[in-house]
């Protein structure tokens, strides 16, 4: 749920990157931070294990400036992907305004993607939210592995598995090369802001 400050004309927006473990959620934020830190001028907070796996969440805020009178403060979060951290994922999802589902394109992760999406639906339900009613963007990550001859799921398969009913905008991406990382962010940011503005009316 967005925090809307009518006096100072500011809106705080929470966007959560969700998906299976090691799928590239943290890499998304790390790429954005590494490349644009001088522009967004904020720090990234990461709570991770010794092995660099996300333990609690990554957090990256940035200011978008004024849109229709309101200053937009975007707060990006990732969740830990490992199955045992479900309670934590649920915590981080609290108050979510928009989501990026980061799917792992490797064929061997097919089941994990579906499982994670179902998990997202469940956790949203806890907050009386519905995956069809929250702005969401699908990102099919690790497309760069095609050059590695790692067996990848086709975009079609991924769409069938994950996006058949939701019909979210999709981006084929690579966190390593940066392909479509910013366009993903752009799309979810715009969609979420538009959604909030609509609710305000």
């Amino acid at each position, binding site marked *: 749920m967005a925090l809307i*400050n009518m006096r100072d004309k500011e809106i705080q927006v929470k966007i959560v990157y969700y998906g299976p473990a090691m799928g590239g959620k943290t890499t998304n934020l790390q790429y954005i931070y590494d490349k644009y830190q001088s522009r967004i001028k904020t720090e990234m907070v990461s709570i991770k294990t010794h092995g660099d796996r996300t333990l609690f969440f990554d957090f990256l805020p940035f200011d978008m400036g004024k849109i229709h009178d309101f200053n937009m403060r975007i707060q990006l979060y990732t969740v830990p992907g490992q199955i045992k951290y479900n309670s934590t994922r649920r*915590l981080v999802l609290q108050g979510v305004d928009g989501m990026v589902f980061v799917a792992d394109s490797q064929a061997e992760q097919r089941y994990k993607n579906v499982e994670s999406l179902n998990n997202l639906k469940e956790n949203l339900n806890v907050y009386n939210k519905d995956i069809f009613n929250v702005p969401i963007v699908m990102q099919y990550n690790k497309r760069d592995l095609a050059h590695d001859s790692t067996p990848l799921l086709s975009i079609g398969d991924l769409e069938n598995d994950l996006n058949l009913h939701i019909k979210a905008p999709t981006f084929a991406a690579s966190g390593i090369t940066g392909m479509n990382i910013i366009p993903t962010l752009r799309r979810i940011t715009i969609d979420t802001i538009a959604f909030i503005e609509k*609710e305000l009316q």
Partner: protein
Amino acid sequence: MNIILKDDELGKIEKILSDNLINSGIKTAILIDTAGNVITYIDNGGYRKDIFPLAALVAGNFGAMKSIASILGESEFSLLFHKGKEKNIYLTRVGDAFILISVFDDDILLGFVRLKIDEVTAQLNKLRM
């Protein structure tokens, strides 16, 4: 369900914080919601650029403690206090949806912080929170 802070509400909240906490020994007070958004803050501790990460982390911490309490059969822990060598942090719930963060150093005892924050919380709860 968005949280909308109206014009005068924020003023009232800020007045309660400043009336009670200036010169109290509590260096920084931040009011946030449970999702980690910042409502408002008083900062005499020089944490300005860290206010947002603090808010996100505290919301996470608070939420995690609530889940731990639940496992223990408690609805929540009423007191969350972390003691550092020089700086300490005290977290309290305000109403159902907000958390007040107080940062103080060794000049003031926790007992006093608790008294002051109880007063602040009571006044904040009287607003529509």
